[in-house]
Every structure is written in C-alpha cells, then in structure tokens.
C-alpha cells in the first residue's frame, strides 16, 4: 500500500523489520541492557556495514532496505518515549525469542508513527498511527477479497457470502473490480464476517469501522486516489529541486514578515479526534533470518594519524554552525552533524570522514579524539544541539 508520504507500508517492510531485528539482537549481545544512545550507535554501526543483500529497494520509491532501517533508527532517537516503553516491558534477562518479539513490536509501532507523520506532512490531513494501521488492514482486506474473486470457483461459498447472493457463474463484480477504489465497503464487512476477520473480533481496535460502510469507503478511496496518482507520477518532485534547502528561505521569510496591523485571533487547528484510539493487539512476529556477514563487524577502527588536524583544515570556522559551537571543539561539532544529518552526507568535506567507512567517525572514535568519555561527549553534543535549535528557530 502507498499513501502520500509513506515509506514503510509496502512489502519491503518485512526486510526492514528483519534487518533491524537482527542488528538489534547483536546490539543486545552485551550482558547489560544498553541505553538508547548506546543502542542507536551500535545498531547504526552495524547497519552502515550491512552487505549488498540489504541494498535492495524496500519500497517503490527505491529507498534501500538499509537506508529505510537507518532512517527508522534515527526516528527512534527522536522519540525516547518509545524506547522507554520498550524497556519497561522487558524482564531482567530476556530470552532471545522474547527480545526479538519486543523489538519487532517497537519498530512496528514506530513505523506507523513515522508514516502517519509523513502522511500529514505530505497532504496536510490529520492522521494518527492507529489510522495508518487501519488503512493497512483495509488494503490487506481488499487484496484478500480480490484473491477470492479471482479464484471464485474454489471459494464459491465465501464469494457468495461476500456478494450476498448465490454464485453459479463468474461474478460480474470480479471483472469490474480493477482497483481498490472499485471495492464496495459491504464486501469488506461481509468478508470479515465470513472468516472472523479484523472487523469481527473482540478487539476494539477497529470499532470505528464496524457497521460504518461510509467510513470504510472513504478510506478505500483515499488509498485508490493515491495509487492512481502515483502510478502516473512515480518520481518524487522533491528530487527535481536543485537545492533541497530552498524552503528555508520561505520559512524565515514567513517568520520575519511584518505582522498585520490588526491581527485577528490565532487560527490554530484544534486537536483532531482519533477514531482509532483502540488498544494495540500486538503485531505479527515472524522469525528473523540471519545474514552471517552482519555478525563480523569490527569493533572499532582507528582513524588515520592527523585526522583531527586535516578535519579542522576542512572546516569553515566562520560558518553559522561553527560560530555557535566554537567553544565545543570539532569532535562535538562532528557529533552534532552525525546526529542531525546522519553519518553520511554529500555536504561533508572528505577530511571529516573515516577513510575506512567513508562516513563521519563513530561516537566512540569522536570521544577518543575529544579525550572525554562517551556520556560526556553525548551531553555536550545534546547541549550544542539545543543552542543551535534556539538559533535556527528565529
């Protein structure tokens, strides 16, 4: 399924989930439970070296499984509440199977949070993570109905139940249903009734859709509308802009525009009601298969001698960011770039990157360069980010 802005709703998600699961198990191999920062850094280091198998596209935009996993990992960094929720449900010494399931659950929740935000940014309509989950349920249900229609001879009784009449010849509906937009909401409801499907369980999750064909229809149409649109327009227009930061000028212009002489009342949006505020039923838990190459990650590669001097020469100390962080030292500044923009970016000078990885040094390496402990480096990094954020907002 594709909706505006979403990245994690297609079949490739299974691969992203497997990759994150496997890297996480490796990060949990140490005897004590890692903190969020330790966890992020460990998994990111493994992901950066993930082999060719994980470069395959994980969605129809062509984002690789590895890049999708990395992006989701960085999203976790921005949502410490999800990490805390994950940690509090873990027993003192979780077994591998339980750990795997909890990791799966955490990322399954996170992907719907991230994609519901992506959807809101792309189309300006409110969407909760639970609503995203409901879209996916309806899409799966539609595909199931389509599969039964296509093979109506083998499933005459169930197809009859869905259509509400006896079937003795090829049903015309089967030929007419070319896309999810042609799927009638009653069929979804009757299909669910015919097999104890998601709309006919005791779970309250989809209560908002039970006995509500109009709402089901509206959501099926949302999916169909975007599928029709994206079939004709497969490239993201964002890639057509030669400068991906042009919008910053618009943002600052809007914030700096003179206020109206007699401004009216603030026009803030009301907090939307979430129809799908039901409880989480838990998520599918399939086994994680193992890519042996991922277990052979070198612990820490040393940087070439003179790295810091060369990196300093490549830095423009008059830049906006460097001026705000001038007291912090280069290792902290590099840690800030790594946290905000990721360890790989075309904008980084070559001298900032570890020649062994082509990426910014790891946090462990940066702590070594700064001559401080890892927690101290993180604390300084986060303090610098807070100062930058205050400066960038005005």
């Amino acid at each position, binding site marked *: 399924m594709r909706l505006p802005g979403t990245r994690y709703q297609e079949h490739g998600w299974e691969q992203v989930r497997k990759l994150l699961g496997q890297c996480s198990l490796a990060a949990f191999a140490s005897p004590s439970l890692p903190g969020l920062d330790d966890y992020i850094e460990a998994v990111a280091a493994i992901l950066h070296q993930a082999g060719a198998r994980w470069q395959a596209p994980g969605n129809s935009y062509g984002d690789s499984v590895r890049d999708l996993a990395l992006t989701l990992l960085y*999203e976790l960094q921005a949502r410490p509440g999800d990490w805390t929720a994950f940690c509090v449900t873990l027993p003192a010494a979780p077994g591998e199977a339980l750990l795997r399931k909890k990791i799966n659950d955490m990322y399954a929740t996170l992907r719907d949070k991230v994609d519901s935000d992506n959807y*809101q940014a792309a189309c300006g309509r409110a969407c909760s993570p639970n609503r995203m989950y409901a879209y996916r349920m309806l899409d799966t249900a539609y595909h199931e109905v389509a599969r039964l229609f296509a093979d109506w001879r083998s499933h005459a009784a169930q197809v009859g139940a869905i259509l509400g009449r006896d079937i003795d010849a090829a049903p015309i509906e089967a030929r007419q249903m070319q896309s999810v937009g042609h799927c009638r909401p009653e069929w979804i409801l009757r299909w669910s009734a015919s097999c104890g499907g998601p709309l006919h369980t005791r779970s309250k999750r989809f209560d908002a859709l039970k006995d509500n064909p109009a709402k089901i229809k509206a959501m099926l149409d949302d999916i169909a509308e975007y599928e029709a649109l994206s079939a004709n327009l497969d490239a993201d*227009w964002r890639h057509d802009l030669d400068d991906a930061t042009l919008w910053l000028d618009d943002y600052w212009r809007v*914030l700096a525009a*003179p206020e*109206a002489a007699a*401004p009216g009342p603030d*026009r803030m949006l009301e*907090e939307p009601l979430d129809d799908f505020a039901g409880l989480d039923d838990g998520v599918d838990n399939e086994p994680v298969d193992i890519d042996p190459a991922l277990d052979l990650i070198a612990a820490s590669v040393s940087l070439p001698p003179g790295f810091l001097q060369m990196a300093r020469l490549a830095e423009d100390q008059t*830049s906006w960011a460097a001026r705000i962080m001038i007291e912090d030292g280069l290792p902290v500044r590099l840690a800030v770039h790594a946290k905000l923009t990721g360890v790989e970016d075309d904008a980084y000078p070559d001298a900032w990157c570890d020649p062994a990885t082509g990426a910014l040094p790891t946090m462990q390496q940066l702590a070594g360069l700064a001559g401080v402990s890892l927690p101290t480096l993180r604390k300084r990094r986060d303090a610098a980010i807070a100062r930058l954020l205050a400066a960038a907002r005005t």
Partner: protein
Amino acid sequence: MTAADRLDRTLQAALLVAPREHDRLMLADAVLLAALDGATPLSAGERAALAASPLTIRRLRHLANARTASQWRASAGMLRAADSGAPMAELVTDDGFWTLHFIGSGAAMRVILQLNAEAPFAREVLARQPMLQVVDGTGAVVLLGRLDADGECESAWPFALAPAQHFQQAGAVFSVETARP
C-alpha cells in the same frame, strides 16, 4: 553558495524538522499558503506554534517546495544562425517564451528582454516580479532587472563586441533565469 553555506543550510534544515514526540499539525494549509504568498502574515501566536512544531514546519516545507516547483525558474537558448554578416536583431529561448532584442549599434546598442505573453508562466512571473538575469555561456551577466508591466526589461548592451560575435565567443548559449538574492 559556498560548501560551508551548504553544510550550514543542511544542518539548519535538519534541526528544524527533527521530530518531536506528541507533535501534530498546528496550522491549516490555507493559513500557511496565505503566509507563503505574503497575503496574510502569521500572528505572533501562530509563528510561535509553527516554530515549535517540526511536523507543521514539514508541511510548510512541502507547500513551499510545491510552490517553488510550479514557478518558472529558467529558460535557455542557443545562438543558431550561421554568421551571415548582417547584425543579429534577436535571440529566442528554446521554449520560445523569451526574446532578446538588439537595437541600435556601436556604443548606443541596447538589449531588451521580452516575455512572450502566451508563456504558461507569464501571469505568475508578472505578478511575482522576480529579479531576472540573462547570462551568456561563460556566466557573464548580459542584463539584470525586473520586467515592466508590458513584460519587458531594457538596458545598455554591456560588451564591446556586437551581440552575434559576443555570444559566438561565449559558448553560443544563453539563459534567462531568476537572479538569486
């Protein structure tokens, strides 16, 4: 833009959209679009709400990018005719929407940029009145200015050589584009 500027802007963009827990859309599209168009500025409260909501900033980014993508940015053209010896009177961009007219001669030579009223972006460009520049194949500025109400912009021919010879030596190409502030 220097490499350091690019690095700064990448970092600033990442800072502004870094996700925040329990964020939601704070301003409707109509409010954001009116602010982008300069029609209705945001109130102080709305500005604060925007600045504190990375998700709303992402929505603004999307709307601003869509707006930029729909705006005309540049048209390129080539010096086509072989040198017949006669002075060149005009040059037209490949899309046919801009014409450079050359009038007068010698030190009194003038160059006029004219926007074709049939251009699909004519209304938008006339309304927005961006600073325009015409550059030759070496990047040298041939003309800089804003269109008048008739869609024209005129200035003195800035080079010693006549237009045909000048463009011949400067890569035989030219471009009409919005000038970066």
